[in-house]
């Protein structure tokens, strides 16, 4: 509800931080959004064999308004880049981004006129996962690392790891 914006700066909120971070990391709802090959491995991760539901993450929201985590799974073409940016903007704060696979992270093997050389050119990325495509275990590892990262955040104040929040 954006409560945190109304809290004055002088208030220290360790316990609240702890609880809120715990809830955020335990209920990361991913945005149901697939681009290319990695999207298939992402679905594999959601499916029975690997089962992301264990982390409370099976609630893929088709609408960006209800999602917390964007997994950019696959190559982002120059034509798609504005769309990805817009979808990211449509997600409510706080939001996190995982760049899944070589193509999303740096363009991968497609260094040419059509592909954006890394999705971090347009949106801030929290976790990069290498691989072409990454195995589901790698994706789960990336998510667990993201959860660790969320644990150390504060509900108020900027997030210094974010490029957009840097002064």
């Amino acid at each position, binding site marked *: 509800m954006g409560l945190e914006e109304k809290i004055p700066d002088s208030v220290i909120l360790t316990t609240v931080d702890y609880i809120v971070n715990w809830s955020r990391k335990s209920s990361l709802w991913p945005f149901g959004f697939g681009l*290319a*090959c990695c999207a298939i491995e992402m679905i594999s991760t959601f*499916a029975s*064999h690997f089962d992301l539901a264990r982390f409370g993450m099976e609630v893929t929201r088709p609408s960006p308004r209800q999602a917390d985590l964007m997994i950019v799974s696959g190559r982002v073409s120059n034509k*798609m880049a504005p769309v990805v940016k817009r979808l990211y903007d449509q997600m409510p704060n706080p939001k996190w981004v995982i760049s899944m696979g070589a193509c999303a992270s740096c363009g991968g*093997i497609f260094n040419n006129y059509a*592909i954006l050389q890394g999705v971090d050119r347009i949106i801030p990325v929290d976790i990069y996962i290498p691989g072409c495509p990454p195995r589901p275990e790698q994706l789960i590892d990336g998510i667990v690392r993201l959860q660790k990262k969320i644990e150390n955040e504060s509900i108020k104040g900027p997030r210094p790891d974010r490029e957009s929040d840097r002064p």
Partner: protein
Amino acid sequence: MSPATRTMTLNLGPQHPATHGVLRVVLELDGETVLRATPHLGYLHTGIEKTAEDKLYYKVIPMTDRMDYLAPMSNNLGYVLTVEKMLGIEVPEKVKFARVLLTELTRLNSHLVWLGTHALDIGAMSMVLYAFREREMLLDVYEAVSGQRMMSTYFRVGGLADDLPPDLDGKIKKILTVLPQKMKEYEDLLSNNRIWIKRLTGVGKLTAQQALDLSVTGPLLRSTGVKFDLRKAHPYSGYEKFDFDIPIGVNGDCYDRYLVRMEEMRQSLKIMKQAMEGMPEGPYRADVPGVVPPPKPDVLTKMEALIFHFKIYTEGFKVPAGSYYQAIESPKGELGYYIVSDGGTKPYRMRVRPPSFINLQALNPMVIGGLVADVIACIGSIDIVLGEVDR
């Protein structure tokens, strides 16, 4: 429609749960009835054809994987067959059998993902999880032969990347016994489910003439009753030695496509069984110095082998000038490669005939007069992969 009412334009995609990636379809709606559907493509345009002109012949193979990423081995096969034809290489029998075995496995792989996502679009959410569970078995084989779960790059010009692993038999046998049981389960869940039948019969109808006019191939064409399968029409990689049937449909609607693909999966299992049992002994690549790298032990001991190895991986190999078109029956339809060579070590031009791209043309005639839900069913039953549509 009275003059005072207006039609509504609904933008389906590029981010939409049921467009299988980044397809964007602009629908013109009257209420929920579709008046026109215009697909907009290119949101996954990767420039693969252009990039191939800048790569040595063997370096193009990994890029073909990433076109139809549900059927990587089929893409590999089409490409290596074309280059082999241009070079005039005849591969050993074992390679042909292994290629047939693995491309049929790929067909299963692709059809399983199709089945799961199609069912998910219709609303049967459990199906996708069941299909992906069985798919893990197939990916195990991929991993065993190539070390990668999806992008195998296993077929090479003149043979295979490596010999088949010794434990492949057991893995294939497991698939051959487990998958038919599971397919029975799927059919119990879907085939006679009244809602499933209601949602698919009579939806997205195409006549044989319409399909041919629109250059549609693959299961989409076969569901209209045209018996066209390149595995029978122009056998490649030794398909003439295998005994299998081509299932065809009658009505050309979504339900027929479902039945055709399910039967194709059964036939694929049949072919795999024959390929596994008849797998001959022998080398896993042709002996063509200068094109096919020499065996690794030789590279370490023999001077000549080392030179060839070094030359192939730095300079590449030259392909005689000319052009050639080779098509294979990929899970989606006719997958063709047209390669133009100017006599150098890189393709002068590589054209891919993408089955999904051309089949997608049939979307507009299929959905006109239907409802929004039918559009989703039709997109699912065309079975597109955006990586291949946009390349």
